[in-house]
């Protein structure tokens, strides 16, 4: 995008990030993928690493992420982005490699790949959008769907007795020695969005410093498949998702703590 010079007396305080392609996205109104994309792009711009970065898109709503970032991109098979990123990073250790994955991709079909990428301490950054549902296929139950949450494949509400419990990936991956940085943030209000951006920046810095695997989980909205308005969707994140997926720093390298807040005790834990 051609930067427009500000009018006399005005200062540009908000513009299109270079790392974000100037194209419309396919995301639904009220979806927070757009915010997450912008945060990643702003971080790449601010770090000055757009030309040294290789992204790996996953399968799900973010399948077309490669169209929206102005960086080199590979498109992985469903769930395999961490394996693909491993292959890229191992032969291009001087590049920054990140995956952008949703909850179905990362926590269900790609559970093995994310766990072992973390275990190996792969020096990659993972941006993990958790919206508790399969968006692209039209609203089926995800590994992170809340107990009682209605989806097209849990029409009576997720019944843990037969459909299991939601997986808390940040808590799980923080247990792995190879993971250097694992935090959960949310995109439901401005304060949380600003915190999310700081965490994304830290996650890339952890990779830059070769400290190990870094993941930022972002609680996200899906008004379309949740069957609510965009505003109600943000409330759902705050009121329903945050208690089930507590925000906080689950693993942070020495000297890089941002919130320093211990994760809140999980309510309604099983």
């Amino acid at each position: 995008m051609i930067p427009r010079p500000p009018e006399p007396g005005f200062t540009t305080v908000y513009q299109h990030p270079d790392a974000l392609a100037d194209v419309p996205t396919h995301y639904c109104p009220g979806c927070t993928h757009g915010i997450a994309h912008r945060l990643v792009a702003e971080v790449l711009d601010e770090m000055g690493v757009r030309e040294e970065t290789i992204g790996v898109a996953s399968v799900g709503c973010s399948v077309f992420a490669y169209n929206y970032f102005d960086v080199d991109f590979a498109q992985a098979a469903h769930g395999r982005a961490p394996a693909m990123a491993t292959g890229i990073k191992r032969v291009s250790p001087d590049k920054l490699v990140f995956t952008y994955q949703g909850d179905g991709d990362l926590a269900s079909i790609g559970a093995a790949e994310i766990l072992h990428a973390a275990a190996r301490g792969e020096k990659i950054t993972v941006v993990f959008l958790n919206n508790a549902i399969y968006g692209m296929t039209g609203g089926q139950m995800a590994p992170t769907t809340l107990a009682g949450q209605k989806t097209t494949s849990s029409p009576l509400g997720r019944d843990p007795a037969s459909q299991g419990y939601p997986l808390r990936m940040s808590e799980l991956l923080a247990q792995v020695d190879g993971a250097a940085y694992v935090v959960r943030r949310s995109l439901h209000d401005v304060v949380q969005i600003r915190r999310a951006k700081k965490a994304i920046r830290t996650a890339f810095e952890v990779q830059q410093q070769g400290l190990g695997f870094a993941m930022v989980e972002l609680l996200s909205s899906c008004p379309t498949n949740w069957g609510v308005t965009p505003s109600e969707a943000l409330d759902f994140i705050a009121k329903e998702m945050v208690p089930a997926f507590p925000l906080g720093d689950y693993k942070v390298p020495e000297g890089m703590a941002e919130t320093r807040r211990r994760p809140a005790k999980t309510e309604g834990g099983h």
Partner: protein
Amino acid sequence: MARELLKGNVAFAEAAIRAGCEAYFGYPITPQTEALEHMAKRMPELGRAFVQAESEVAAINMVYGAATAGVRVMTSSSSPGVSLMMEGISYIAGSEVPAVLVDIMRGGPGLGNIAPAQSDYNQMVKGGGHGDFRMIVLAPATVQELIDLTVDAFDLAERYRCMAVILADGSLGQMMEPAELPPMQSLRPREERPTWALTGAKGRDPQTISSIHLIPEEEEAFNTELQAKYATIEANEVRFEEHELDGARIAVVAFGTSARLSKTAIAQARAESIPVGLLRPITLYPFPQERLRRLADEVDAILVVEMNAGQMVEDVERVTQGRVPVRFFGRTGGVVPMPEEVVDAVRTLHDELLTGAPKPDAAPRTTAEEVPA
């Protein structure tokens, strides 16, 4: 380089290193594990990438990732592991990135066993995973050829931006033979990676490597390009060996270990004055169709010998189109036929020819139990 006694699995791994393989990703599985072990030691010594993946699914997707970076990359496995790799193999074909796979086949289906078999022919030659795609499939019969074809596989994969496969069986992976390794090639410098590779969008527009074409007409156009590429491969890369075909009335068609033991059988049959020779496809894809078509007019009958229940024989029948009787002899489940069994099958076919030419439509599939004792 001097000839030395080399185990097949170690030989192809070292050959890959010398061919400039920069990254290896694999998972242990008998009977190819020595290759992974060799890579585990040698690749880090040389400052190259080695990862023991959590599964064959992850291994092939690591291969896919490294391939998008434009380096020479390989994996190796055995039949059940290769089944797991089919997803990534299809993506690699759909993204047109080069990679090398060595399949040291074992008995199946299912977990099967760890004995030598050739029952991955269909899986590898017919494309395996979803979608219309092909892989170049090379079938060595000796450890030396395993080495040489591994080196060639990297060149072919890069030339056509496709997967090149070495299809060998467990006996070739496990046997030791005198062989000569190639000289060590120097690695391509990082700044000389191919222009299509993902290297970071420095001084150029960003590029994407993907296998998505959402619009059916675009996907079809891509498929048409792929098929054109395969046509070029079929025109340029066919390889086969002819053995004792001069004056032969019967042609054995066999690949890999089956071909090797068929040579022993042919020597015995020739000693009995049976005019038999061998056509050994070295490339299973592209299949030596032209030569086989001509052969069908030169001989009175064809005997296909495989260590499976009859997979390549379908291609032989397809190509020869009933112009010559095609018989089959195979052992399955990891049983390696004895040359004498092949001699028996040749002799039976020869007797039939003497008593009246067998009809193409009366071409029974001979299994081990039906072979005269």
